[in-house]
């Protein structure tokens, strides 16, 4: 018999300081496990979420003390959506075609910036939401 899972949502707000992404990672991992996602997929989510939070802290909020990173998780229709909001001192969404990992490793560009590529590999959906006011919003999705 197939188990049915209800819709559910959770919100988390952390200081915009490196290290606190671990707290967000552990909170969201437990939420996903509670929803019945398999542990190996939750490990993917933990890696992707950590990367996204570090991006928000470093590039969105520019390591500015006092700013926050908000994480919103919504589960419905067999899909867990996780949105990472920063307070957007800087737009860091890529506006040009990014290099692939292979191109970066081949020396065609900076080795930095692999986080977004990694996230895309691990998640079923990943990307910036367009036209967000007052900051960046990066959205991840994991399908059951």
């Amino acid at each position, binding site marked *: 018999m197939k188990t049915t899972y209800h819709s559910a949502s959770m919100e988390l707000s952390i200081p915009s*300081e490196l290290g606190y992404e671990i707290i967000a990672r552990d909170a969201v991992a*437990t939420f996903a496990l509670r929803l019945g996602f398999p542990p190996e997929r939750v490990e993917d989510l933990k890696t992707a979420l950590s990367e996204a939070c570090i991006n928000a802290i470093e590039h969105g909020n520019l390591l500015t003390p006092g700013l926050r990173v908000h994480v919103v998780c919504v589960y419905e229709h067999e899909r867990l959506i996780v949105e990472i909001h920063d307070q957007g001192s800087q737009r860091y969404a890529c506006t040009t075609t990014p290099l692939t990992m292979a191109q970066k490793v081949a020396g065609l560009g900076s080795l930095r910036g692999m986080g977004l590529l990694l996230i895309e590999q691990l998640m079923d959906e990943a990307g910036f939401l367009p036209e967000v006011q007052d900051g960046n919003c990066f959205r991840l999705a994991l399908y059951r």
Partner: protein
Amino acid sequence: MSNNQSEMKPLEKIIELRLPSRLGYERVAMDTASSLARRMGFHGDRVDALKTAVSEAVTNAIEHGNQHDAAMKVVVLLTVRDDELIVSVADQGRQMLDQHHTTRVPQIQDILHKDDKGGWGIWLIRELVDEVEFTTAPSGGNQVRMVIYLER
């Protein structure tokens, strides 16, 4: 002088968690508090005590304060200070806590005669953390504030 003081005062680090009022989600609060406490340097036994206290507080908020209404939220605030961790758990107060229950020590002989064997949660919280305070949350619901001291 006041400017210098405010510059010297370290920023409190606050983590805010808003959870659905459904049993099972207290685990999210437990693991968040545990992750934070470990990061702060608390010993394993203190982390375990905190997890149990947080679990009891959030379960009370879900079951009693919010009466299992999934549309209501439980708000957990974790405040990091140099020498302590403060955890506040607030519900939306569909049912207000009788203050009498916050100080009463349950007697095992009384519990044995009841069908409901619950009622140990608040006593347990008091045993596990260094400070406990039961108040009304700004939102109007019940709030329990728990503090554990960091001994280095």
